[in-house]
């Protein structure tokens, strides 16, 4: 039992710090080796703490890169929820947070760029040129405003294309969700688990998360197309959305950890959860009349209090369809 304890901890460390195939091979080797060793105490004396054998094998650059990706993915999952709290608890903080988070994401991307250059280039001249160019680009982007540039790069053309008009993004939740999804798709790559059946637990988690997403989507559509009454219970709607967003956040982090440690396809859970978070967030910020003064322009003021007008219904329907569609496509990609 004690020996299993040592091997169990070693297995967790191996799956976290080593690439998947190597981790499995090391665990298999240590299973053989530890079967010859007397007990946990002897194992610690001979091999050190359970993480020690793994650290002897880990490539520091790869570990650093994985941690950088991990932080970025978690950051993209946490920001929408943080926005929720800052927006409703203390409105003044909201805009400041946007700036800080934008700066953070650029810094992380910058560090990641440096890591790739320094890790992959043997030419000193090329390394310094790349560092200088990258630094200049980042400084330039800081002056422009990181989130504005991200929006211009990732979202403005999308808005023009799908909605036929540009409109200011009240929150950047969807930006983080898309960046997080793309990072997770790039990091874990495709096809490494092709042929293996999808874990049942993953299917169950995906179905649960999808059910909540569809529930929120269905609720909003019901309110906007059939009966707006339930939406007027603002406090209840808010509580449900915040609770769902927090659960989605937990699901997203679990998804990344399991994608790293067991099967890359767990990233699909991460993606569906961050898209779910965006839906919760949007439901809170876009559909509550008195919470979103910017949307009053869509409401016929003479009929205010009765329900949303046609333009607003159209706007919400297209926007939610876009989130659901994007989420479905990215989740499907996550399962490849």
């Amino acid at each position, binding site marked *: 039992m004690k020996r299993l304890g040592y091997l169990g901890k070693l297995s967790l460390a191996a799956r976290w710090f080593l690439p998947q195939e190597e981790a499995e091979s*090391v665990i*298999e*080797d240590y299973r*053989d*080796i530890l*079967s*010859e060793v007397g007990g946990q105490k002897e194992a610690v004396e*001979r*091999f*050190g703490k359970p993480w*020690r*054998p793994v650290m*002897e*094998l880990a490539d520091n650059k790869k570990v650093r890169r994985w941690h950088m990706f991990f932080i970025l993915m978690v950051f993209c999952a946490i920001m929408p929820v943080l926005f929720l709290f800052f927006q409703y608890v203390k409105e003044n903080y909201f805009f400041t947070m946007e700036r800080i988070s934008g700066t953070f994401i650029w810094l992380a991307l910058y560090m990641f760029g440096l890591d790739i250059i320094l890790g992959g280039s043997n030419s000193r001249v090329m390394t310094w040129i790349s560092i200088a160019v990258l630094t200049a680009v980042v400084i330039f982007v800081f002056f422009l405003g990181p989130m504005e540039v991200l929006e211009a790069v990732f979202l403005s053309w999308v808005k023009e294309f799908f909605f036929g008009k540009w409109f200011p993004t009240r929150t950047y939740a969807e930006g983080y969700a898309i960046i997080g999804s793309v990072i997770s798709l790039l990091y874990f790559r495709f096809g490494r688990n092709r042929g293996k059946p999808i874990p049942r637990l993953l299917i169950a988690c995906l179905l649960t998360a999808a059910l909540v997403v569809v529930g929120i989507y269905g609720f909003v559509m019901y309110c906007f197309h059939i009966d707006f009454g339930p939406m007027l219970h603002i406090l209840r709607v808010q509580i449900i959305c915040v609770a769902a967003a927090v659960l989605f956040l937990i699901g997203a982090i679990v998804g990344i950890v399991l994608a790293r440690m067991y099967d890359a396809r767990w990233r699909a859970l991460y993606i569906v959860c961050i898209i779910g978070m965006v839906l919760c967030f949007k439901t809170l910020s876009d559909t509550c009349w008195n919470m979103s003064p910017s949307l009053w322009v869509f409401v016929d003021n003479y009929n205010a209090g009765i329900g949303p007008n046609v333009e607003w219904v159209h706007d919400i329907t297209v926007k939610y369809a876009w989130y659901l569609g994007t989420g479905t496509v990215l989740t499907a990609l996550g399962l490849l």
Partner: protein
Amino acid sequence: MLKKDIIRLCMLHLLTVSDRYGYEVLSVLHRIFPDTQESAIYALLRELCREGCTESYVGEVSGGPARKYYRITEPGRGEYQRLVGQWRALKGFLEELGI
């Protein structure tokens, strides 16, 4: 010649004599280098495998569980000869110095 190279040399030497399973290699080398943790020795064994100097296979043992054995490869024999040459040169220098 670093201690790491000496351990690599000993490892390759053990494998030129016969194929061995992981625990066996670790035990023998730990007896010779008691201040080196076995996890570090195992890391060197995997490094040799990654470099193509050794390869592993699952061997059947009568009455016991199947184990992963390591054997030396052709590039491994070349590396072994290189390390033996270095070791002999070092030994010669040390003898010249009267150590």
